[in-house]
């Protein structure tokens, strides 16, 4: 908005522009964490080559861990950002639908036997069926939000409550365990490749969404619907359908995450798989500086936000902070974010920015 007016002054404007840019928040948070780790324990950034139990060389180190375990959250952040932008609300059922998608995949792979020696179906078929289930769940949420105009958080509360029971029901309450090592590739390592597979999967999702945003009108339309639904309708868009679509896209993201999650341990526990991940996904969107009330969004800021959350988690684990205290640290982040985004603080920031700029300008003049 103010970009045109600040173009004239050099460093000040660059800094000012950066501060005003949405992506500044996650970058600042990331830098803060990097700085903290550099001071406390620089070995955090060491990456070593180890040999895993299958005899392949793999990279390991805290940074690899962050990228590895952050993948799921980054993928979810993509879908959650779109849902947030279009509907002005969040989907709180993603954890439960991950359980459903994962359960369906295992069901297809296992057939009727919960501990098969060989897979009963190709993994790709299982994934596609799981994908279908997650998209159906997304479509269910989407219909409630887009066509019945229910508050997203209330609409998704249904699956949030029922999802894990549905997931258990899909497998007759049994706990399937897959012994085929091929299934573990998606959450572990492909033979001979030293980088964890989830990193590639996340990268793939990012490339796809980048292409979609670049070459289709999805980004523009979701933002238009989020900013002003009625005016976008007057301009020939179908707001309900676009909202519906974002929920289905989130469903696809959920299915991909479900695959990674069940692949990591080749099994599933319905009551705890991806527990509370919805809160982290929403936090990622917020950390990316996106308004949780919808409208304009910055996809890359959300994704970066997801990795920042994982960075924080890994840092705290590394520092031996009690893991049940993790939510408290995340709460601190939320509080800071909320405070920063209030109008009072915003105007104060812009005041400080302006005075800085004017000082720099006077220097340049002198």
């Amino acid at each position, binding site marked *: 908005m103010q970009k045109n007016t600040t173009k004239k002054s050099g460093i000040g404007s660059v800094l000012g522009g950066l501060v005003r840019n949405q992506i500044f928040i996650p970058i600042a948070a990331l830098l803060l964490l990097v700085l903290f780790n550099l001071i406390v324990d620089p070995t955090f950034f060491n990456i070593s080559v180890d040999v*895993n*139990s299958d005899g392949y060389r793999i990279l390991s180190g805290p940074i690899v*861990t962050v990228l590895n375990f952050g993948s799921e959250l980054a993928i979810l952040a993509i879908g959650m950002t779109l849902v947030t932008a279009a509907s002005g609300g969040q989907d709180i059922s993603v954890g439960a639908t991950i359980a459903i998608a994962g359960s369906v995949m295992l069901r297809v792979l296992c057939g009727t036997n919960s501990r098969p020696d060989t897979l009963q179906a190709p993994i790709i078929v299982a994934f596609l069926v799981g994908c279908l289930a997650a998209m159906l769940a997304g479509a269910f949420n989407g219909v409630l939000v887009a066509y*019945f105009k229910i508050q997203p958080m209330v609409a998704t509360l249904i699956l949030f409550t029922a999802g894990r029971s549905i997931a258990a029901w899909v497998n007759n309450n049994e706990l399937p365990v897959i012994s085929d090592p091929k299934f573990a590739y998606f959450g572990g390592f492909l033979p001979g490749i030293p980088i964890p597979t989830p990193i590639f999967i996340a990268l793939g999702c990012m490339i796809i969404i980048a292409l979609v945003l670049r070459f289709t009108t999805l980004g523009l339309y979701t933002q238009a619907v989020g900013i002003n639904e009625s005016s976008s309708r007057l301009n020939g868009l179908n707001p309900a359908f676009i909202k519906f679509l974002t929920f289905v896209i989130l469903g696809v993201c959920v299915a991909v995450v479900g695959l990674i999650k069940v692949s*990591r*341990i080749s099994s599933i526990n319905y*009551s705890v*798989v991806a527990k509370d991940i919805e809160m982290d996904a929403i936090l990622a969107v917020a950390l990316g500086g996106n308004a949780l009330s919808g409208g304009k969004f910055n996809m890359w800021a959300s994704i970066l936000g997801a990795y920042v959350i994982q960075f924080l*988690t890994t840092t705290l684990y590394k520092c031996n902070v009690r*893991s049940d205290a993790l939510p408290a640290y995340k709460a601190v982040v939320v509080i800071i974010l909320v405070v920063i985004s209030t109008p009072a603080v915003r105007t104060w920031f812009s005041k400080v920015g302006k005075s800085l700029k004017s000082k720099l300008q006077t220097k340049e003049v002198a």
Partner: protein
Amino acid sequence: MKKKVLAVFMAAAMVLGIAACGGNSAEPAGGKGGDLIKVGIINNDPNESGYRTANDKSMKEMFTKENGYEASFAYSLKNDEQINAAQKFITDGVDYLLLSAADTAGWDGVLKDAKDAGIKVILFDRTIDADPSLYEASIVSDMAAEGQQAVDWLLAQGLSEYNVIHIQGAMGSAAQIGRTGALDAAKNDGKVNIVTQQTATWNAENAQQIVQSVIDAKTPFNVIYAENDDMAKGAVAALDAAGISHGVGKDVVVMGFDCNKWALEELLKKNWNYDGQCNPFQASYIDDIIKKLEKGESISEKTIIMQEKGFDANTITQEDVDKYGI
């Protein structure tokens, strides 16, 4: 108009939901045999865990018409819903009320009603804060004994040092407190060194991350003490990724709890070292008690602590897996 449609839809959804729950929560088994013993069983949701699933299954297998019972089941993880179910069973006039309470408090009133109605109450799996005169017997696991058994086994392994990664269950649960207690005591006696002590809230992925962070930090360790099988599995996934060998005669000793079938199979393959049982099969104990009470005998011990095993990978057999795996 839209609101009306919405209201109708929501109402329909709720009715459907209730109908669906109803199908589950009260299914009268068997006909109206006059000499059948009527039991009302109140349990936690079988989806809660593998333990609960096995527990519910054994109950359903025991209390059948063939065994002389007419059983009704009610499931809830919420105390108030359980109390409602208990009241319903009392009105239905069951002979025995079998109860695994979601919460320890709040049961006095309804149990007094049961006593007045001449209904005998037997607690299983979980105890409650109520006067012991209100129930006939309580069949429970001793979590502290489970932990002690596991720690005794560990200390008998004669390792030169014990650097333990301790992965805890959800903080405050009976299983966590019991299983943590024994290890903490060993630490305070200087017998083991705890590298890290973290809760993974029964979650495999969290356990994987906790172990990964220890591996990343290059802190040496040689024991994983996970308070359930899922978390042990997550921990082992991290070990596998880092190429750290585990199991019998390997670098890291892996210990789990609950005796899931797949976990016992890992023991059989010598990938894990120890698995402690948490016995979900209270049904046969309850059956014994009911038979005794029906004969007019008295129960000598009010609190019955179930026998629980600890399996060692060196001695476990396929029969153990089939018999004790849940």
